[in-house]
């Protein structure tokens, strides 16, 4: 019964007082370097766009025997498909075949038919598990919409936090989120994972999760700003982070544990999504502590402190906002 009643462990021991703000320059520097490197990677070698965003044909095939890639490649070239790309899919004799975008629907159909012919020649008894073909006009639109979803989400988050907190918090959060996103893109380039609509969903989920994390820490800072009117901002931020550390790590842990099985058992289409999620959770959690907080310290050193001290010329709106 005791097993069910009392907690068995704590992630962070009570009374932890880590001076996070000491490492603020190191944190920001590392983050800036990583993000700059990611931006560099974005331009060269660049993201590997998935079929959603680039157009073309992707076929997943299960072969009766383990497929011989050279033979398959030769057969595809023999069927006038020199542009076909091959990729092994997690065991089970599965192969992914990729074709570039064709000029029109007829050409696409013809190319798919030739893939079938080449497969039957090299590996009789094969099974085509799935076929997707996306035309160039659709992929361009999907790409636009994906970026639009990302951009508008950031904007809405900025506006929401700005309404609920002081503007310093909003700017801190959005700058941190941008740094998170650039690193995620760098991660996509390095791992050569495909950037498609599912990845946009992963990034947006990370974005929502990461904001959530920042909001909790900010919430505590705001509360402490009211409670300890004379404490230096630097100490106050450290204290707030330490107080919420158990929650920050606890929630990261549960989301991480939820995403982990997806990365292991999820199968080809969801694995990549989960891997990006896992990466994003780690980045989002650390950026709440090492990036969002220092930015707030730089932006708010004077202003946030002054605002919380009752002054004669204080804007009545702000008093009201704080009273909430």
């Amino acid at each position, binding site marked *: 019964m005791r097993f*069910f*009643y*009392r*907690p068995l*462990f704590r*992630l962070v021991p*009570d009374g932890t007082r880590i001076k996070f703000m000491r490492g603020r320059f190191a944190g920001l520097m590392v983050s800036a370097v990583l993000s700059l490197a990611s931006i560099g990677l974005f331009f060269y070698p660049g993201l590997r766009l998935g079929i959603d965003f680039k157009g073309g044909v992707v076929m997943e095939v299960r072969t009766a025997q383990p497929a011989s890639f050279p033979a398959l490649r030769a057969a595809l070239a023999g069927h006038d498909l020199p542009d076909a790309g091959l990729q092994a899919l997690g065991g089970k004799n599965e192969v992914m075949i990729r074709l570039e975008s064709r000029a*029109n*629907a007829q050409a*696409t*159909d013809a190319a798919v038919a030739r893939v079938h012919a080449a497969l039957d020649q090299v590996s009789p008894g094969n*099974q085509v*598990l*799935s*076929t*997707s*073909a*996306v035309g160039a006009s*659709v992929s361009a639109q*999907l790409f636009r*919409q*994906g970026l639009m*979803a*990302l951009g508008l*989400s950031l904007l809405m*988050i900025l506006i929401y*936090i700005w309404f609920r907190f002081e503007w310093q918090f909003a700017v801190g959060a959005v700058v941190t989120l941008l740094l998170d996103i650039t690193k995620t893109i760098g991660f996509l380039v390095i791992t050569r994972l495909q950037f498609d*609509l*599912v990845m*946009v*969903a992963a990034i*947006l*989920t990370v*974005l*929502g*999760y990461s*904001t*959530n994390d920042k*909001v*909790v820490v900010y*919430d505590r800072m705001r509360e402490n700003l009211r409670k300890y009117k004379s404490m230096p901002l630097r100490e106050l931020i450290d204290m707030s982070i330490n107080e*919420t550390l158990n*929650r920050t790590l*606890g*929630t990261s*842990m*549960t989301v991480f*544990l*939820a*995403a*982990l*099985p*997806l990365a292991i*058992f*999820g*199968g080809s*289409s*969801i694995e990549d*999504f989960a891997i990006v*999620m896992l990466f994003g959770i780690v980045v989002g959690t650390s950026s709440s502590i090492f990036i969002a907080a220092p930015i707030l310290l730089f932006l708010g050193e004077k202003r946030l402190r002054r605002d919380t001290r009752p002054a004669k010329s204080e804007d009545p709106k702000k008093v009201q906002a704080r009273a909430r």
Partner: protein
Amino acid sequence: MLYFSRLKAAAVFGACLIGILLCLPNFWPAPKNGMPWPQIHLGLDLRGGSFLLMQVDMDAVAKEKLGSTVDQVRQDFRKSNIGYTRLAADVAANQVQIGLLDPTQRQAAITALNDLLVPPNGPGSLADFDVSGDGTNLILTLSKPAMQARATAAVTQSIEIVRRRIDSTGIVDPQIAQQGDNRIMVQLPGITDPQHIKKLLGETAHMTFHLVDESANANGGGPAPIGDAFLPMQGDPNNKIAIQQAVMVDGADLTNAQAGQDPQTGGWVVNITFDSLGSRQFADVTSANVGHPFAIVLDNEVISAPVIREAITGGSAQISGSANAQAATDLALLLRAGALPAPLTVIEEQSVGPELGADSIRAGAISLIVGFLLVIFFMAGAYGLFGWFANISLVANLIMMMGILSLIGATLTLPGMAGILLTLGMAVDANILINERVREEVKNGRSPLQALEAGYKRAYGTIIDSNVTALLAHVMLFIFGSGPVRGFAVTITVGIVTTLFTATVFARLLTSRWYVSRRPTALPV
């Protein structure tokens, strides 16, 4: 915060009960009599099937309209004796350009074209064309609103025709919907190879009957005489036939078309029956042209051009020339369903085989179970009794989520399953926030009751803030995403809403019940 009136407690448990009830239909097949049976639908990626996104060719709509206008102008001018030197459609500019012989006839010409220039449904409705130009130049420009109306009508009509064609193939539970301005989405569960459907939808199937110009040589290489067109025979593009462009009978005037075999030759034919207008036209033209060939044209190809042996007055006819049973059945199907107003092009296509769908369901289910267990063990270990309260709320959350997804008839995709799992991972965040808060209050020396009260109260604002921001991101994803990704956005959005209920209200009720029955002197934090 901890006090629940009996009514309120009953309402909370009632909500959970409704959640369970809403989940139940998923475990039984829907009844046949068509009563509403809210159920979660499996997406094509889990169920296997094909998805087609097709674009209506709007240029063809405009071209068709301009072409028929040129014919109309020719007829109107002939009737009113107005001479012209030039008459041509300029598709790029959406115009019909006319060169008049005599500039003084300009007003008479405009009057003659009255039926094109005056709004067909009286003042206030839209005229199809605007007139411009001067002197001998008369320019008719297809107006933007008229073009718009025509395009909208074309898409609506296309959807109807697509639905009829797919329905007559016997595919179960197809979904056909408009997407954007000029796109049609078709989902075909269980169809792994959509080639046949694509072929059926790829033809406009506009059938017309024409007289043949026997004096013209269609294969000589020269241009077709005015009013004629050289069209290829079906399956033999080098063999052309000179037909008169005037339509004698239109395929739209059919009431039925059935595939069959000709008892004499044994070849495959399509037997067609005309409605009263079609029958009369068909009788007129066949009785006036006995001994002459009569061309049957489908999508600018001549199917056959048999010689009329005698007047056909019964309103039924036979189209020969089908290569096999499948071709005859398809042609009959297309003729019954009607012609598309414009060609459709497939711009996106996805098909998933049933094996892959089953694999995906298995992968999703295993991930869900493992992830759920990991989260539950973590919560139990880190928060003890309150962790178990959170876990019970988590089960309630899962049930309510399924209930709401069934109620709105949502489509569950593989990313959607991932969304459910992530929601569960994030849902306990609210419980963690509350528990940490309660713990702090205990450390600050508050009594158990005060600590619980304060913990719930203070954590509340944070929970709202953090969930609203997550909600914003996923609403954007829902608006701009498509296909399976949209399923993900739906599950997460629903999950955030149910989380707000179960993690704060339901877990609080459990805590309150426990506190009232035990009256503990210390909290297990």
